């Protein structure tokens, strides 16, 4: 059984900080926390495109509800079955990850993901999705959400 991150729309303030921490955690710095000047440095690294967070804050004009959604690491993971390269795969611990080296940006995963949780990454070259911060041990979005609107749980 995989761990999943659950958003609480009742307490999400729509600050988008999870996106910031997500970008940073998946940058070459790979750190769970970030200082403002480091972030500026990071953004300067991306010349022609903005880095893509692997989390998506939904908000809509005229609505007060917001929440941050990321990959549900589905048991049956339709994205992995649609992927034409084998880049999208389910690991033994239940996490679903994208091997961005292998991905060719065909967006079959976008066609198949029922949650709309796959994003097109930097320069729209490879799929970019939540990997539960594989290398950090703990998702940066959960750790840094100021209002505890994201929780990680085993289900």
């Amino acid at each position, binding site marked *: 059984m995989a761990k999943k991150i659950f958003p609480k729309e009742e307490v999400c303030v729509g600050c988008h900080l999870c996106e910031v921490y997500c970008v940073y955690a998946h940058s070459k710095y790979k750190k769970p926390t970030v200082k403002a000047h480091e972030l500026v440095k990071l953004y300067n690294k991306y010349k022609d495109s903005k880095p893509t967070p692997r989390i998506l804050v939904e908000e809509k004009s005229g*609505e007060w509800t917001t929440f941050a959604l990321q990959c549900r690491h589905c048991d049956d993971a339709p994205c992995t079955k*649609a992927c034409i390269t084998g880049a999208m795969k389910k690991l033994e611990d239940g996490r679903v990850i994208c091997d961005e080296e*292998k991905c060719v940006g*065909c967006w079959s995963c976008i066609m198949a993901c029922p*949650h709309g949780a796959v994003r097109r990454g930097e320069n729209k070259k490879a799929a970019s999705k939540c990997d539960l911060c594989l290398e950090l041990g703990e998702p940066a979005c959960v750790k840094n959400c100021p209002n505890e609107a994201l929780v990680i749980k085993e289900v």
Partner: protein
Amino acid sequence: MRYVIIGNSVAACGCIEAIRKVDLQNPIVVISDEKYRVYSRPLISYYLGGKVDENKMYIRDEDYYEKNKVEAILGKRAVSVDFKNKEVVLDDGSKVKYDKLLIATGGKPFVPPTKGFELKNVFTFIKFDDVKAIDVAIKNGAKKATVIGAGLSGLKAAEALIKRGLEVTVVELANRILGSILDLEASKIVQDELEKHGIVFKLETSVDEIIGDGKVEKVKLKNGEVLDTDIVVFAIGVVPNIDFLKGTELKINRGIVVDDHMRTNIEDVYAAGDCAEGYDCVYQQQRVIPIWPNAYNQGETAGYNMAGVEKTFDRGFPMNSIGFFDVHMITAGIVMPNSDDIEVLVKHDKEKNSYRKIYIKNGSVLGFMFINSIDRAGMITNMIKEDLNVESIKHRLLDDDFGYLDLPKELRQEKILGGAKA
């Protein structure tokens, strides 16, 4: 117990992976007439275009067979199946006994009888060896290419050939490109993009004759035009690869007829993928759905049932995600309906060069085509799969920022939280 699979592509993967979830012991044998370990057909155009190298063609790790205890018999063709004695006969005369058999032989290129097809440098576009041969022809100096067929694989071939620096002409019988997934307006958007990159189209005609002395030199079209060309690529379509099973007691319509367990009419014999004809839940009839996700899902369903775990799959329907240069499109379900009780929603944003069109029948999405506005399209594919009533949200479906906030709170939370409490 011995599982045998004929065919070694994505349907086979689905089957192997399902079996190994529930049965770690019994041997699995995979037979393929191709010599490669499991690779991706859709990637052949990327290989030809120079975007992926040989290493990245393979969709599973090198130790895949070993890890899954699979014996792979590669480079040998199954020539017949003796359903009575439960054995598969190979082209070298050897026999492979099975207890449970999956037929996953996929598709083969459809080529209408054409004078000159046997000439050198005339190719089809399905297998790894096809693009390796095209690659050799290019390295030997081919400069002009003619692609027959403006469907998905034909245009992928054309895109790759342009990227390799060839002059490319695409010949298509219909009045538009990608006729199976796009309407006229959408098809124009894509054609403009392809023409911008130098691809020339000859619509509403087809090939009459291929001309050359040993090697192809010209193609004569039905409209009388004659084109100089160094290579010809046939990409008109695929048909189920089941000739070696015709005339047996196996029930075949267009493909091998399967039920929602992927069982055929013969006990212990299953079929999946491009060679099978299963239930299409949008068209509500038995159909061959020759696409990758369907092949995986059918193979997986077959695998579970072969291993004794009952699973059904009756939610298959056509869906495609494809891109050329910078234009990407996702289509699903019925995209050219011809009944009048269907509501059509359209949005063509000329500035963004994006197009969204959705068909609704009795409150459910019947199909859609999205061009250049594809993010989160899977939510809508899933609505087709779940037959969700979209009456209250339908006009939002055209907006590219459509999302969970458009769903009623209860439904949204059910989908996101899946019953758990945050």
